[in-house]
């Protein structure tokens, strides 16, 4: 290329290769096309005017013939010139490549700016676009839990503004490190790369992005670009435009609930409220259940500046698994975190296999546990036949039966174990034992009173070092718990029918504690996650999940389809509220709750500066350098090619060229 020109399209090498290849191809095709039809005529002199004129005619034919090839080569040359897109080097060096990165995370919905912080950010972005130089090219991107590029790198101001206007707020915390990695990648190798970040500086390592624990005010991400040894944002002019004016927010930063194992109809919940205000504040928190918002609890909380309070709710019967906690009178700048949601899971059904004779006391107590368990009965003489099922059963109860050999793995409750295969060899019997010791802290004795238990006779069990006597009489453990690798066992050293334990109200509770301890099921943790997470939900065991996918209904009512892969679906929680999983038959299969639950995001403290690596980016220059309008040489080259094409077509049809 001539001096002072740069190629902004194809590289010099590519253009050179194309020009040689194209020229050779055109010439070869042209030569092949020159084969002429042979025509037999009676008298050739009739076809030509005179001998002298033939020479000029031959010359004219030769000129026409090669003129056509010259035209085609010229057309190809102009097309190639358009493709390489030459432009004056001086002018091209003046243009910047700008990435305008807008923060659309949850904190940008704060109302301490005209409209919201995001509205303010859009206004600032539009100003930046208007101030772009004539040679500048820009890309609009936004980030919350992930980065979204709204445009390519272009000069069309209208498209850039439209992209800014289309940025919508997110309920997710911001992943600024991921956004900076994106910007760094886009700007790598570009002329005069510039990154303009418009943000409130909030957020941090939330969302499903990488987020290497980057907190505002500290190094953002690592100081190394992705996959290379080049420092992040190396050679890039980084500017920061802060938004946000005040710190006025009270937030629910945690909300969880679970069912009580002993009373699956009741729940216990935990709520954490934190103040991000600079003054003491009083708020009212209300917990409701179900879509009708049935009130469960209402509390008045007093918070000092920056204080965090945890409030618990226990033993409350809930008619609906959907819980909602609301700060009714927060009157703060960010309403998004004034609400929180929780889903109380269905109680886990424990499968129980009872091996023994009829025992109305035991059966009645198990029946009282309701849908929490699923019970099957096996007669004593079928104990060996049932051995293959023990590993698939959550808890096996041996009522007066001691299998031989004793199982080495599994979860078992022995009622009155005896015989040669007794896991606890008995050393005789003890009459009328009195319970003197009870381990109150043990899960088996939770909420139980056993001290006045009446037992006619009990076996004197021999304990091993893996055993814990949960309740014992002097010299005689009455209730024993054993834990080994792959093996959990509970032993009741007496026949229930020779005691008053079955008549006590503690008996069902005891059984519930035993089943819970042996089955080791989670205590009904709430299905709640922070927004921005992508969660995997196991649906294989749910009815209606045999189809290939489910519908996911978001809190705002939008419906999307999620395929079932390996018995699970993946759901991205990008809104605050309940996500419902609907089966193919329209039946609700599961429900998830998503909350902001991000103290860094709820902290609306305005940041005047932001540290990125080892630098503190300043604001953009108010008036970037003005340059002369960039001439689009490629347009002229393309127009010339088109004009030559038209001329060649006309000349060919008029047989001026061949």
């Amino acid at each position, binding site marked *: 290329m001539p001096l002072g020109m740069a190629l902004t399209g194809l590289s010099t090498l590519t253009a050179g290769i194309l020009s040689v290849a194209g020229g050779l191809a055109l010439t070869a095709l042209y030569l092949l096309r*020159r084969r*002429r*039809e*042979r*025509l*037999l*005529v*009676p*008298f*050739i*002199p*009739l*076809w*030509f*005017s005179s001998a002298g004129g033939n020479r000029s005619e031959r010359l004219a*034919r030769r000129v*026409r013939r090669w003129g056509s090839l010259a035209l085609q080569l010229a057309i190809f040359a102009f097309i190639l010139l358009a493709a390489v897109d030459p432009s004056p080097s001086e002018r091209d060096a003046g243009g910047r490549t700008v990435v305008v990165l807008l923060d659309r995370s949850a904190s940008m919905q704060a109302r301490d700016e005209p409209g919201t912080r995001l509205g303010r950010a859009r206004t600032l972005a539009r100003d930046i676009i208007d101030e772009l130089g004539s040679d500048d090219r820009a890309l609009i991107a936004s980030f919350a839990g992930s980065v979204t590029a709204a445009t390519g790198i272009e000069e069309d101001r209208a498209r850039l503004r439209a992209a800014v206007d289309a940025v919508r707020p997110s309920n997710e915390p911001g992943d600024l490190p991921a956004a900076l990695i994106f910007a760094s990648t886009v700007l790598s190798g570009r002329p005069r790369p510039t990154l303009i970040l418009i943000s409130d500086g909030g957020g941090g390592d939330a969302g499903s992005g990488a987020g290497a624990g980057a907190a505002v005010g500290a190094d953002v991400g690592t100081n190394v670009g992705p996959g290379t040894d080049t420092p992040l944002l190396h050679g890039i002019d980084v500017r920061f435009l802060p938004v946000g004016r005040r710190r006025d927010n009270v937030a629910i930063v945690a909300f969880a609930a679970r069912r009580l194992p002993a009373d699956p109809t009741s729940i216990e919940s935990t709520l954490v409220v934190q103040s991000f205000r600079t003054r003491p504040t009083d708020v009212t928190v209300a917990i409701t259940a179900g879509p009708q918002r049935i009130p469960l609890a209402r509390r008045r909380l007093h918070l000092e500046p920056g204080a965090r309070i945890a409030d618990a709710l226990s033993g409350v019967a809930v008619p609906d698994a959907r819980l909602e906690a609301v700060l009714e009178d927060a009157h703060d700048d960010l309403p998004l975190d004034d609400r929180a949601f929780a889903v109380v899971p269905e109680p886990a059904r424990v499968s129980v296999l009872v091996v023994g004779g009829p025992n109305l006391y035991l059966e009645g107590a198990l029946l009282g546990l309701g849908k929490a368990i699923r019970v099957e009965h096996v007669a004593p003489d079928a104990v060996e036949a049932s051995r293959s099922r023990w590993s698939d059963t959550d808890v096996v109860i041996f009522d007066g039966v001691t299998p031989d050999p004793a199982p080495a793995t599994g979860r078992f409750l022995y009622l009155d174990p005896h015989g040669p295969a007794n896991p606890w060899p008995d050393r005789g019997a003890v009459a009328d034992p009195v319970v003197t010791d009870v381990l109150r802290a043990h899960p088996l004795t939770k909420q139980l009173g056993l001290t006045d238990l009446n037992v006619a006779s009990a076996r004197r069990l021999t304990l091993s070092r893996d055993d814990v006597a949960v309740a014992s009489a002097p010299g005689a453990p009455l209730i024993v718990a054993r834990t080994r690798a792959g093996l959990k066992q509970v032993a009741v050293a007496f026949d229930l029918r020779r005691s008053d334990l079955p008549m006590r109200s503690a008996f069902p509770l005891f059984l519930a504690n035993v089943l819970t301890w042996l089955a080791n099921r989670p205590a009904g943790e709430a299905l709640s996650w922070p927004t921005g997470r992508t969660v995997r939900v196991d649906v294989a065991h749910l009815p209606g999940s045999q189809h290939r996918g489910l519908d996911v209904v978001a809190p705002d009512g939008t419906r999307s389809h999620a395929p079932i892969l390996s018995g699970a679906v993946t759901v991205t929680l990008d809104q605050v509220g309940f996500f419902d999983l609907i089966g193919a038959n329209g039946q609700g299969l599961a429900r998830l709750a998503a909350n902001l639950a991000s103290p860094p995001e709820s902290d609306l403290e305005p940041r005047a500066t932001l540290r990125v690596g080892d630098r503190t980016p300043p604001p953009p220059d108010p008036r970037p350098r003005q340059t002369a309008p960039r001439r689009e040489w490629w347009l002229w080259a393309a127009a010339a090619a088109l004009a030559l094409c038209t001329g060649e077509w006309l000349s060919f049809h*008029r*047989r001026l060229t*061949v």
Partner: protein
Amino acid sequence: MAAPKLASLVGSNRFGEHFLRKLETLTVVAKRSRGGAAGAERRGRRVGTGIEFADHRNYAPGDDVRALDWNLFARLDRPFVRLREEDEDLTLSLIVDGSASMALGTPPKLELAVRIAAALGYIGLSGLDRVSVSLVGSGVREGLPAMRGKGSAARVLDLLGRADAVGRTDLEASVREVLRTASATRRGLAVLISDFFDPAGSLRALDRLRAARAEVVVIQITAPDDASVPPDGDVVLEDAETGELRELTITPASRKAYAERYTSLLRGISGACRERGIPCFQIPTAVAFEDAVLRILRTGGVVA
């Protein structure tokens, strides 16, 4: 020699029985045109001592004063002598162009040429004229000396039936050779049948014939293919006679120029003939040969 039966004239050449029947018909027509006179029925236009008035000419010293036309002298006050026709038998010389250019056309021009020549020859022999046939190109390729009588028709038809179109065209050289081999005492009618695509110019051939005191009739065979030009494009022209190759790009301009040159050629031939008082017939190959022969017979003076 007895007149051969028609069937015996059908040979392996191009003249079938149908063609020969047409010849008979044309012969009848020709006889009726001449009034049915027997013997040497063709009247030559040579001035001689016959009874029939032929023409006048200026009196020259030494002319027989008995030939003066006194009535004309009285009217015009200038002496003229009266000329009288002399009856003699006619030699019909058929000169057929057999060059390669005659093979072009659909049908080939040679086909019409030999049929016309065959018809004229058969009529002439039937009228007890002496007929000679020469197949020419750049010279005489094959020929028959003057023959008389219908019995010679087979030889004439045989030669014309075997004629093919090869070689170049040089009508002047061909005519020169024809005149050299013909009897110097026999003058008559020379019918030149060609497409007249002669690089050396065909007019000199006509002048030679006139200089030999022959009455000349020109029959130019034209083909639509000779006048047509292929669509625009690049072509290589090959001369049918010389094999010369020339590249040409056919354009509207070149198409127009060729049409003008072709028209000019035809007009040139007809104009030159007209100047020389030579009957000229330009007959396209689309015309049936019998129609062409009748036209020639009636208007060309081949039959008086």
